[in-house]
């Protein structure tokens, strides 16, 4: 009995220390990489079973989620990425040296991006139809920033180009995948609720169109 326990204990300990070792390596890997890496990529590169990697990465995500951590490991664009937590932005900003200028997008650009995100692959005329304005506008800006990409031609008259969102889009907007976006129906319900509940004459949707885009906190440093 005692012997069995001891053996079990020894095995547990060796598994534990192996896990700790693997966790340390995964932490280091997530720390150094610039692009979110998928579990598959990591598992293949360090030759470990996918489910084991997934389990330990999830442990890391949970651990860093605790309030005593100022860093977080997040699932973004189908992979894992380390970054500072948004709630500490004021303290952190003072120390950010290589400040990449924040990506400023106008409301028309965001609208176009939203249409592409929800309707992809989508053609220029389809985008114009929804937005109600001529000019696919801002497509070039979105392409330049690699938020969207060409997605082949559509098999209709004129064979127009279609567009889709990219991995960079997911990264820039902190999305795990496209499924994480609320459905369009949810927006509709939101609109209806506002119509019923809101007593002020300005629902949120129109308010945003009037006021210049709110200054995001990351611009003045």
């Amino acid at each position, binding site marked *: 009995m005692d012997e069995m326990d001891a053996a079990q204990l020894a095995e547990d300990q060796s598994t534990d220390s192996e896990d700790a070792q693997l966790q340390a390596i995964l932490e280091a890997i997530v*720390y*150094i*990489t*610039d692009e979110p890496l998928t579990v598959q990529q990591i598992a293949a590169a360090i030759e470990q079973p996918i489910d084991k990697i997934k389990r330990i990465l999830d442990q890391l995500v949970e651990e860093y989620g605790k309030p005593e951590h100022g860093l977080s490991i997040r699932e973004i664009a189908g992979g894992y*990425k380390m*970054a*500072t*937590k*948004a709630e500490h*932005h004021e303290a*952190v900003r003072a120390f*950010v040296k290589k400040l990449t200028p*924040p*990506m400023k*997008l106008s*409301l*028309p650009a*965001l*609208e176009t*991006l*939203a*249409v592409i*995100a*929800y309707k992809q692959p989508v053609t220029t005329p389809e985008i114009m139809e*929804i*937005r*109600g*304005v*001529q000019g696919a506008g801002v497509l070039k800006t979105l*392409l*330049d920033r*690699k938020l969207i*990409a*060409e997605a082949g031609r559509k098999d209709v008259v004129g064979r127009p180009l279609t567009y889709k969102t*990219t991995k960079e889009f997911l990264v*820039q*907007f*902190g999305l795990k995948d496209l499924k994480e*976006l*609320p459905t*369009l129906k949810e*927006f*509709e319900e*939101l*609109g209806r609720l506002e*119509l019923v509940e809101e007593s002020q*004459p*300005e*629902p*949120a*949707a129109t308010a*945003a*169109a*009037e006021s210049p*885009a*709110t200054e*995001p*906190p*990351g*611009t003045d440093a």
Partner: protein
Amino acid sequence: MSSPLNFHLEQYDGPLDLLLDLIRKQEINIYDIPIARITQQYLEYMQKAAEMDIELSAEFVYMAATLIHIKSRMLLPRDPELDKLLPEEDPRQELVDRLLEHERFKSAAEMLQQKRVVEEAVWSNPQIAQFRAEDDDPGLAVTLFDLVKTFQTVLERAKHRPVYEIGTEEVSVPDMIRYLRGVFEQDRGPVSARDLFERQRSRRAMICLFLALLELVKLQAVGLTQQDSFGEIGLKRLKGFEAAFAGGDTLAAIEQGYN
């Protein structure tokens, strides 16, 4: 005046934006739009914009026509018997659908903006550079769009390339020898002499190129060829090419000669 937009004229991204704003500001039930009132307000906006010299795009005009069309259809009496057989769709229905669709995407855009605000408060500090081999070329991550854009840039550059401009750059004969050496290290030739001269951006560069060519011909590093009389002159790398550049002496000597 009945328009809620009297006091300040706002800029709208398109007619749908303007309509939505009119409807939402007045808490109008979007499923039962008082089309006459809205049409009047819409036209007032267009009028005001014209007075203030604000240019409205063609879609605003088209939407005005659509509104007027819907309004007139609603005024026309319908045959009650026909309605029983073939109930007509509300003339406003298509517009309402478009407005709702547009509004959904406006909300989606807002949601995206909120997500950006959060991401802008988050910083990452990847250290991968320390683990990459030094000879790895980081390069550009390339998309199809980059390819078209690049081609466009190359063509633009070709268009604006000044051929006979007198540059202020200080090109020297040794510079041109080094340049030719680069050319013939890639390509044994024949290279069109005319092409080479046309590529130069200043008179000085052309003269230096000419002198550099003479030097290389003298050293038997490069030879001149011509297929037929008055034909294109070609430049070709000769056996003496390697020898001419073997030591640093040749260049140094020429450099001295031209200083």
